[in-house]
């Protein structure tokens, strides 16, 4: 905050100093013109410069007005904390116009105003590209306003010619004062730059600290995510164990007990054994129902509520919206209706494959095709992502394979050009129900 204060003070000091310099230069020019007229040297003055100077009042009004407008723009630029870069850029352009006008009005005899613009430009600039623009702009500006470079061609009258109308001691004073102004202006500018650089340096340090803090937080978050996943897995495992214990365990226990009873009973009373076996059968059936119910709890929610085709479409729609990618889903099998376990595998394969495409392949186009040939149903998922030369079988692929193997299916994949997955499942068409 203290630095900010110094910067603003330096800025105001530069405004004031340049104001004094502008007054000195224009004052000298006007005074010199009147002196020329008073000493009857007008004709030889015109002959020697071969340029018609501006009207005296025109010189002072233009130089001062343009300078004050420049200061006005510069302060507005400082105060206006807008995020829009264009506005700052526009103000700087206007500043440059005023700077050039004021300098031309002074017949290019004072080039210190450029430093004000350069200070503003450096304060507003960010990024590498702008540094180049800035460099070019500064060189260009100096070229424009420097008398020695261009003044001769623009019909400007050099400072020394104006001074030559005064006696030597007065000339020396004027020269001295002007060079003092120029030097102080330069010193102020350098200080200003140093302050700006230091401020920027501090800002960068601050950002670095924040950055490392953020990184640490991120790491923590990742560890937490892993822990949470593990936790969920354990919970799920416990639930499964409970479920198996409660349903299958219960039924199996009953069945085992019943069968033990049957073994002892079968020789004494085959009739009672028959009855008992019927009971056991009921228990086993009940067990199957329970198992089915448990398994159905693990089914994807979408499949529970709608048919497979709609569920896949919905999933793709969601992926499209969340990951912003182009997905083409082509289904040649109608109706897309199978036994629950088959549907689930198909759903999971599509889900896993597309997830991989997005996560690992960074693809933005995915095509999904489902077709059938004889009893084989084929799912092909292709993307335009990075692919990979040597596919390392991760958890996802392994899982897919396992699921497919349960249904006697096969999985093929290739990562040469994008990623390609082909899953084939022998469908039990005979058991297809309507």
């Amino acid at each position, binding site marked *: 905050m203290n630095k900010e204060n110094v910067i603003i003070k330096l800025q105001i000091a530069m*405004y004031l100093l340049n104001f004094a310099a502008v007054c000195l230069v224009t004052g000298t020019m006007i005074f010199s013109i*009147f002196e020329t007229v008073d000493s*009857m040297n007008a004709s030889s003055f015109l002959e020697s410069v071969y340029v*018609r100077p501006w009207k005296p009042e025109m010189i002072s009004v233009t130089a001062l007005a343009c300078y004050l407008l420049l200061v006005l723009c510069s302060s507005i630029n400082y105060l206006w904390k807008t995020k829009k870069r264009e506005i700052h850029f526009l103000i700087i352009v206007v500043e440059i116009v005023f700077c050039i006008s004021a300098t031309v009005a002074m017949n290019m005899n004072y080039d210190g105003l450029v430093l004000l613009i350069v200070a503003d430009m450096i304060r507003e600039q960010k990024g590498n590209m702008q540094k180049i623009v800035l460099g070019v702009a500064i060189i260009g500006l100096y070229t424009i306003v420097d008398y020695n470079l261009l003044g001769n061609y623009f019909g400007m009258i050099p400072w020394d010619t104006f001074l030559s109308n005064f006696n030597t001691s007065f000339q020396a004073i004027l020269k001295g004062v002007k060079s003092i102004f120029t030097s102080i202006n330069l010193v102020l500018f350098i200080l200003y730059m140093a302050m700006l650089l230091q401020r920027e340096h501090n800002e960068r340090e601050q950002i670095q600290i924040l950055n490392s803090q953020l990184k640490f937080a991120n790491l923590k978050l990742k560890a937490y995510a892993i822990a949470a996943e593990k936790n969920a897995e354990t919970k799920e495992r416990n639930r499964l164990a409970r479920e198996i214990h409660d349903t299958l365990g219960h039924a199996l226990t009953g069945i085992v007990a019943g069968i033990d009873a049957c073994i002892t009973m079968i020789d004494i009373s085959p009739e009672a054994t028959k009855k008992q076996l019927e009971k056991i059968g009921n228990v086993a059936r009940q067990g199957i129902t329970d198992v089915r119910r448990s398994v159905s709890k693990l089914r994807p929610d979408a499949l529970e509520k709608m048919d497979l085709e709609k569920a896949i479409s919905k999933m793709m729609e969601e992926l499209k919206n969340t990951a912003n990618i182009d997905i083409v889903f082509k289904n040649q099998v109608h109706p897309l209706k199978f036994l629950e376990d088959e549907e689930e595998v198909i759903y999971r394969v599509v889900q896993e494959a597309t997830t991989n495409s997005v996560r690992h392949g960074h693809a933005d186009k995915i095509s999904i095709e489902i077709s059938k040939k004889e009893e084989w149903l084929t799912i092909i998922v292709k993307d335009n992502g990075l692919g990979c030369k040597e596919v390392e079988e991760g958890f996802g692929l392994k899982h897919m394979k396992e699921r497919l193997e349960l249904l006697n299916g096969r999985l093929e994949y290739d990562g040469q050009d994008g990623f390609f997955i082909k899953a084939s499942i022998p469908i039990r068409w005979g058991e297809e129900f309507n």
Partner: protein
Amino acid sequence: MEREGRKQKNKQLALGIVIFITTSLLLLIGATTISQNQKDDKVTVLHFGMFAGSYWDVPTGNCYQVIDDAIQRFEESHSNVKIEYVSGILKDDYSEWLAEQVLLGKEPDVFMIPAGEFDMLASVGVLKDLDDFIKKDSSFHEDAYYSAAYNYGSIRQRQYALPYETVPTLMFVNKTLLEKEGIAMPDTNWNWQDFLDICRQVTKDTNGDGVTDQFGYYDYGWKNAVISNGIRLFDDNGENTFFGDEKVEATVRFVKELTDVNQGFTVTSKEFDEGKVAFRPLDFSEYKTYKPYPWRIKKYSNFEWDCVTMPAGPSGKNQSEVSTLLIGVGSRTNYEELAWEFIKTLCYEEETQKQILKDSQGLPVIREVVQSSEFQELLQMDAPGTSKINMSVIDQVMEEAVATPNFRQYSSVMSEADREISRILNGEVSMDNGLLKLQREMNSLLKQ
């Protein structure tokens, strides 16, 4: 936090004050500028810049008469326009006065251009380029002017001024001397050989004291001869010279022959005034001033005199130089249309141009005015007795006249050339070598 907030506020306050001060200063500047520029709009005042006396340094009566009458006519035809001029500025001070006005930004809207400063004023941008007016104005025809006078107002193919009055150079002839020697007055088509013959004939010792005391010419130099031999020494833009031309060599040879006639004597104006010299180049303004009464008894009163054209060289005509007074429009004028109207009143209107005949020493620049019968009558009135000069001669001189180049270095180049050529005439340098060297030197001088 609170302290930081307060500092932030202080900072904004400081810059706010800067903005406030600059804005109020700007308003102040704006207000004063506007109040300065506010003028009485009822009457438009057009400023005219002129000097007193003659452009050609001959005595004049009322030098303001022609201008005053023109202003009166202009003001009558343009209501609400007033023309003001500062009177009493001498011709010698005029250039300085004009430069001062230019420096102060108060130069007149229309002004006379001091001799030798036309190129400077045009290049510096003090003079307005008149080409646009000339193109737009259908009532203005540049053909009405004698081209030598009109072209004097143009630089680098742009017209920056219009001629007001002009003065051609004529050859003054001492009639009494020629009669005494039994020589007929030369006619208007005479040539160098005639001139040389007469000079040889009259150059002699009349009182027998062994010293030549009667001479052929005074003040005739290579510059006069160059023009009458049809030579252009410079190209249009004043970038190249043609001193190496063989016509120049022929001219210098002629001048050398002429100089040799005087047998080493240097003729001065004293001899001329005493009536001992037959010829002398003379400005038309002098003719007009000293020919009529009362001035004729003031100068050249002890002999009869008249004027003829300049003698023609082998490759030229009876041509001479004209010197022209130009009037221009200031480029910063607020009333450019009015300024154009006024400059036309002065330099184009027949009324004004006719009055120049009567009340000024120059010659009008408009052809028709010179060719009018009034002009002839006026000349006859001025010159009682037989005069070789008549309307057609003046017209011929003007038609064939050559405009003096008006580029910046003209006078310095010419004086440098004058020095070199007198060395050639004195035999210090050989003729062809000297001229080629001169051309080289002049070209490099012009390129500076």
